[in-house]
């Protein structure tokens, strides 16, 4: 059976969640591997959320926010961008492929781009295979 990854997606309320909603209402088809969590802003996504998702068995984590300059709270997405690069360095040091964590900008009108992004990320994670974090924590000796 082909490996079907689980991808946790944190979408900001103002742009990306609406963009994902547009993909849905426009009846676009895209990979069903994502589990969407709506947050008020990509700047609300604490590193703890990302790490917890991996610990609970996520194979990938996607964060989407408003395009730079468009943040509803002015600079939340910039904070997210900085955390993202720091977190990528950290998870790589912890033996994970940094592509398991991905950040992208999706505006409220970019339903199509959202669907393509999810397909592309699902493909990437399929190639990477299952994430070992949960297994590693469960089998500490």
């Amino acid at each position, binding site marked *: 059976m082909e490996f079907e990854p689980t991808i946790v997606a944190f979408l900001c309320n103002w742009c990306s969640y609406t963009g994902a909603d547009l993909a849905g209402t426009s009846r676009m088809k895209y990979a069903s591997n994502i589990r969407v969590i709506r947050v008020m802003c990509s700047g609300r996504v*604490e*590193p*703890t959320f990302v*790490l*917890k998702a*991996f*610990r609970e068995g996520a194979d990938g984590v996607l964060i989407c926010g408003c395009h*730079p300059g468009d943040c509803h709270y002015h*600079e939340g997405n*910039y*904070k997210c*961008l*900085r*955390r993202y*690069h*720091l*977190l990528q*360095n*950290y998870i790589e*040091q*912890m*033996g*994970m492929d940094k592509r398991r964590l991905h950040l992208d900008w999706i505006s409220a009108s970019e339903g199509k781009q959202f669907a393509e992004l999810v397909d592309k990320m699902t493909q990437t994670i399929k190639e990477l*295979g299952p994430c*070992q*974090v949960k*297994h*590693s*924590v469960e089998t*500490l*000796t």
Partner: protein
Amino acid sequence: MSDNEKPKLKLAVYWGAACGGCCVSVLDVHEKLFNVVAAADLVFWPIALDIKYKDVEAMPDGHIDVTLFNGAIRNSENEHMAHLLRKKTKVLVAYGSCAHMGGIPGLANFTTKEELFRRVYDESESTVNPDKIRPQTSFTVPEGVLHIPEFYNDVRALDQVVDVDYYLPGCPPQTERLVDVFMAIVTGAELPPKGSVVGAYDKSQCDECERKKTDNKKIKAFKRPWEIQDDGETCFLEQGVICMGPATRGGCGVRCIKGNAPCRGCYGPPADVTDPGAKMMSAIATMIDSDDEDEIVEIVNQVADPAGTFYRFSLPGSILRRKIVQTV
């Protein structure tokens, strides 16, 4: 003893995978040791008293009132003693960073047992071991079979092995805090709820740090401590040096910062924070003074060792707990 009607407290101190600093911090009560000894009998303390494991095994369950367990769980001996002391003790305290979240020995979770053994028994410059002999857990000699503790692949904090009543963090815990806690127990003061961190504050280091800080910290470049001329009064972070203060519980009396060294995070995360490193990454990212992605990457890459810096005392107690080793 004049007040012979009041039974003395039975106190034990034990070390798992530890450096011995925690035991020394108990000795650092100095002349207050007389108060301690007046109120408590030390029934087990390997660094100071010749009491054997079998003596502890012979004690009835719940015999010891308070055990200060320092050190992480690294091998089967540590684990055995953690279970034994849990059984014999009414109040088990995880004493010091190693018992609290894994501490410095916990950094071994960046590697594996096999890698460590290869380095220590094969590769190190001072090792001559042509037969590639490795430690065995049992060995037969004419007198019988010798047993040696098994070295585990992963380091664990005390509460990942047994139930813990209180945590007294620090590397080592500040002795004054220990005396406070000890006296609270002796005088019968109401104890905090089980699972509490005692001998420390709820808020972060920054709350009691006296260095000058602005509301909006801006960092354009990360520097190592030797790369700056510290003026002795400005917040380390504002000078570009990583200080774990924002993600570390106060209570040590900002000892390192008062000694002009940035905080390393030995007191663990403040109340309501589970993962100190994640908290620190969150805080640091807010301070980076750039909105340009290329520049952000450049600044972030100046943090030479994010995992080791942000989880110096807490890797086993963190969310990911260890470096992932590919098993397939």
